[in-house]
């Protein structure tokens, strides 16, 4: 199945889709155009030594840790992926309902004190914050972005937790190969969905907060790895992703960010 990037969605909305997923039966770019394209941002000679010196200097200035103990854990079952996804869906539903109440209350009162993830949001308050006031629409828009981020992080948290659980299930005495493959396929599809939303958020005002942007960027990198691992993977691959997750504290940072959703929810 062809997954979509944000650009695909925009193209689809604009009625700009090709006949179908785009195979290589369509003609290649004309040689003259290809030649012209090759001149676009034509790279200069590679400054190898200069860049190497800079890399060494930057690494000396910012030493980083290596490795981490690989973990091998006993197994579980593939339905856990589904269960985690359902749990995430329920959480998001609750978040949506609560947020709806909050937004409605905010509109009615004309004032709010929106907070999320420890990041202050410019929600208008006082006399200028009434419905129809210039600040109110912007505040509601900010709140909408916050909600979108919270929803995505909720999904990501559930996905990453399911990923951990699936890793535990791998290698268990009762774990069937088909079961494992099915859970991998589920995880990959789910990761693509979350990745797509994460990229949309990174392109939006939701990423204007530096701390949130860093979290979304780290999440994007992890999701790309998860998508790339499944379905043909080795146990080592998954353990390495686990280690990457641990090293960046991605899951911990998501959990820190999610509970502090919009005030009043």
């Amino acid at each position, binding site marked *: 199945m*062809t*997954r*979509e*990037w*944000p*650009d*695909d969605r*925009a193209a689809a909305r604009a009625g*700009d889709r*090709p006949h179908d*997923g*785009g195979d*290589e039966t*369509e003609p*290649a*770019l*004309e040689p*003259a*155009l*290809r030649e*012209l394209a*090759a*001149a*676009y*941002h034509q*790279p*200069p000679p*590679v400054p*190898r030594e*200069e*860049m*190497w010196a*800079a*890399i060494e200097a*930057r*690494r000396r200035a910012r030493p*980083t840790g*290596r*490795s981490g103990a690989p973990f091998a854990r006993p197994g579980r079952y593939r339905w856990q992926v589904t269960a985690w996804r359902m749990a995430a869906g329920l959480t998001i539903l609750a978040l949506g309902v609560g947020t709806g109440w909050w937004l409605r209350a905010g509109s009615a009162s004309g004032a709010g004190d929106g907070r999320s993830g420890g990041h202050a949001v410019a929600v208008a308050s006082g006399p200028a914050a009434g419905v129809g006031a210039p600040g109110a629409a912007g505040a509601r828009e900010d709140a909408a972005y916050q909600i979108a981020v919270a929803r995505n992080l909720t999904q990501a948290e559930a996905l990453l937790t399911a990923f951990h659980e699936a890793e535990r299930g791998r290698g268990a005495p009762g774990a069937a190969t088909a079961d494992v493959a099915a859970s991998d396929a589920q995880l990959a599809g789910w990761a*693509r969905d979350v*990745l797509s939303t994460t990229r949309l958020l*990174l*392109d939006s005002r939701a*990423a204007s907060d530096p701390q949130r*942007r860093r979290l979304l*960027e780290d999440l*994007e*990198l992890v999701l*790309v*790895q998860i*998508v*790339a691992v499944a379905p043909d*993977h*080795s146990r*080592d*691959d998954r353990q*390495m*992703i686990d*280690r990457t997750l641990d*090293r960046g504290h991605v899951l911990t940072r998501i959990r820190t960010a999610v509970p502090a959703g919009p005030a009043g929810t």
Partner: protein
Amino acid sequence: MEEGDLIDRVEAGDPAAERALYDRHVDRVFRLAFRLTGDDDLARDLTQETFIRAFDRIAGFRRQSSLATWLHAITMSVALNRLRATKRATARMATADDATIESIESPQPRASEPDLKERMAQAIRQLPQGYRTVFLMHDVEGYTHEEIGAILGVDSGTSKAQLFRARAKLRVALADFAGEWQS
């Protein structure tokens, strides 16, 4: 030295192996970064960031894919995030100036009639970022759809679709020069 041995040595912290890995891959990483940004300083910075991240995270490299694919995925992640940040900053400035921004990293093209080469550059700049990335990787830098899919974290079918649309948009943009490029 075999790639596996090289990775083992880098993982063990061997500086000579790190340099060997760098020498083996730096050209393509830099080319990709430059194609995407068109800025020498930025391309250098992205290349450096790619290798710093790679050395830090080599223990997390899955060896079923090639090291090049993994490195280029890091490059893309670093580059796209940087371009997003640039785009946001540019958009904020544009909003303040009440100006219109349609391009990420380049100024608006000249109002006067450009030649075909400039028109092509302008058309590429105006492609949506996803289309432009796939087009540059496939048609200019010669990556396969499978490589692009692995690097960008999308299906190879998505890469093909993006390329199809990119080419179509370029042909439309250059239609009034068709006599020059169609033979």
